[in-house]
């Protein structure tokens, strides 16, 4: 309800695309240009804002998109806007991923970084070392693909064994983390909304004791509580997406990550309970939503870590 007409059209086209049969990375990046949304025009993008990129990520979450849209988007926006890699990321011809916690000395990257989302398919790593960002080709890095609980998104562990790297965002390391948090928030909102929709549909159609489950007030009130938590989390996530350029962003992104991943974790757990036996099976999508929600919850700052960070602003 807080979208203008253009944003609504974007949402609808992304949603239609992701629920259609034949989507592919090439069409997603090329035809729809989702990797280019928030990239400045001079960098090869559409010059929209993180808010528009968030609309796409929210829909990607709802569809459990198994493609590196989030990582490529975050990598592109984290980079110095003048970075030469930006055009490829915006076009989707380069797949990007962001890695936090390497060290940099004498022009070389060192160290091991775990849990790099989409690190299994990335062409280019945007690597945070100290306060700065560096860009390095995946071919220069020892990439170990890790099997993930959330089978819809891969991870890699990276080893930087004195790898030459190009400065690609001086002083932008913490901004990259804020972008990742805001992006995970947007996506988590979509995950939660889809899981809640599936649950509501189940309650409306499934009969027990001779009546639809949706007639049981105890379940109705729990659904209402989930809806309320998700509504507020949606507001918090969208607020962060709106203030990406301001000094409020670090706090807003942490708040959004906290609220949205908590909401998604709660909704997807409750969804399995409300779905009953069917939600416990591999063939039903409920578990995939839960696993994506659990991953987004644990990565880039668990809730109590984020609260500790926010305490400085109280």
């Amino acid at each position, binding site marked *: *309800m807080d979208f203008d007409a253009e944003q609504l059209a974007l949402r609808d086209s992304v949603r239609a695309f992701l629920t259609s049969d034949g989507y592919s990375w090439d069409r997603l990046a090329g035809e729809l240009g989702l990797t280019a949304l928030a990239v400045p025009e001079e960098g090869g993008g559409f010059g929209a804002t993180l808010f528009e990129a968030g609309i796409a990520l929210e829909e990607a979450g709802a569809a459990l998109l198994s493609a590196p849209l989030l990582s490529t988007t975050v990598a592109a926006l984290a980079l110095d806007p003048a970075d030469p890699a930006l055009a490829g990321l915006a076009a989707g011809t380069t797949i990007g991923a962001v890695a936090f916690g390497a060290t940099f000395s004498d022009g070389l990257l060192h160290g091991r970084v775990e849990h790099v989302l989409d690190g299994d398919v990335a062409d280019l790593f945007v690597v945070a070392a100290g306060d700065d960002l560096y860009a390095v080709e995946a071919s220069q890095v020892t990439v170990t693909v890790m099997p993930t609980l959330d089978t819809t998104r891969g991870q890699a562990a990276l080893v930087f064994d004195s790898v030459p790297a190009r400065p690609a965002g001086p002083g932008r390391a913490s901004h990259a983390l804020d972008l990742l948090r805001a992006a995970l928030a947007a996506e988590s909102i979509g995950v939660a909304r889809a899981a809640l929709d599936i649950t509501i549909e189940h309650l409306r159609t499934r009969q027990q004791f001779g009546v639809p489950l949706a007639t049981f007030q105890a379940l109705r009130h729990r659904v209402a509580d989930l*809806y*309320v938590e998700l509504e507020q989390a949606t507001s918090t996530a969208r607020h962060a997406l709106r203030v990406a350029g301001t000094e409020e962003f670090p706090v807003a992104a942490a708040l959004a990550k906290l609220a949205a991943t908590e909401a998604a974790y709660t909704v997807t757990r409750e969804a399995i309970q409300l779905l009953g036996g069917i939600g416990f099976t591999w063939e039903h999508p409920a578990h995939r939503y839960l696993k994506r929600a659990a991953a987004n919850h644990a990565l880039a700052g668990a809730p109590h870590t984020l609260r500790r960070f926010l305490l400085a602003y109280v």
Partner: protein
Amino acid sequence: MAPDFRAEVRAWLAEHLTGEFEPLVGTGGPGREHEHLELRAAWERELGAGGWIGLGWPRPYGRGATIAEQVVFFEEYARAGGPGRLSHVGEYLLAPTLIAHGTEEQKARFLPPIARAEELWCQGYSEPGAGSDLAGVQTRAELDGDQWRVTGQKVWTSLAHIAQWCFVLARTGPGGRKQGLSYLLVPMDQPGVTVRPIVQITGTSEFNEVFFDEAVTGADHVVGAPGDGWRVATSTLAFERGVATLGQQLGFAQELSGIVERARENGTFDDPIVADRIAAAWAGLQGLRHHALRTLSATEPDPLAASVAKLLWASWHQRLGELAMAVDGPAGTVLLDAPYELTDAQRLFLFTRADTIYGGSNEIQRNIIANRLLGR
């Protein structure tokens, strides 16, 4: 927004909230609504004379201020320590209802005295036998010549002892539940109206019972058609959770600041478990703000927005009261003074028990939401 609007508000408050009104600073908030009633009534008239009541009403009755301007007013009012308002029932509940559903005569008769704070209002919805079930209203009214005669009992009626008028939901016709209700405007100063303060959990009396025994009001003092009261009344409930929530949140922020200050003083801020709860409360307050901004900027009205907002703020505020007590620790078991003067933490803790009950309980709000998501 006029570029100097904030400066204008600030200057006016600095100039007027002083002198005889100085004792009002910081008083009359939730749980303290019994404080300084007469002086606060005078203060309301001062606000009215300054043109600050009905700020957001459309012209000619109000100043047609934007939402942003109204927020600025709330912010500056809170910053100046303005006392708890007495005219808000008329300003934020009745007036929007009249503007939406009232006749031109009714608007002309009732809006100006609200804007001048010459007539204060109270709300006659809840009843002892109906609780949050608005459609279960038993109060009856009959048209007797050119007058309505109203008989019944209302509860949770704040400010009834100082209000000149009450808007009353009463059963005027046949049909059960939502049919046959009317929205009547009833003067309080008459033999047929008795106000009995209810002593509450806090030991003070913010809320009253109001007894109507053949109380009378003019036949033309019905808003909307007779029998259409359900629709009119539920629209008022929606107004209750409008832009005023942003002002309310400024009060919440002050309460939270007080708790943080207290936690720093008594050392509990250094307890990671308490600090985690403080951070959660602060994050929750930001969430309330972000949510209010999003709903206020919505292009289409969301029929569930009011219920979502009520559940969010009431539950958050209630948890804040529990946090205040946790921060106080054992000290929270001792009063500020005998016989029963509460500390800030105790007042917040006890008074917020009502937040999830009155004005549509949490259970009623969940019903409303579920009805829409899951069908009736």
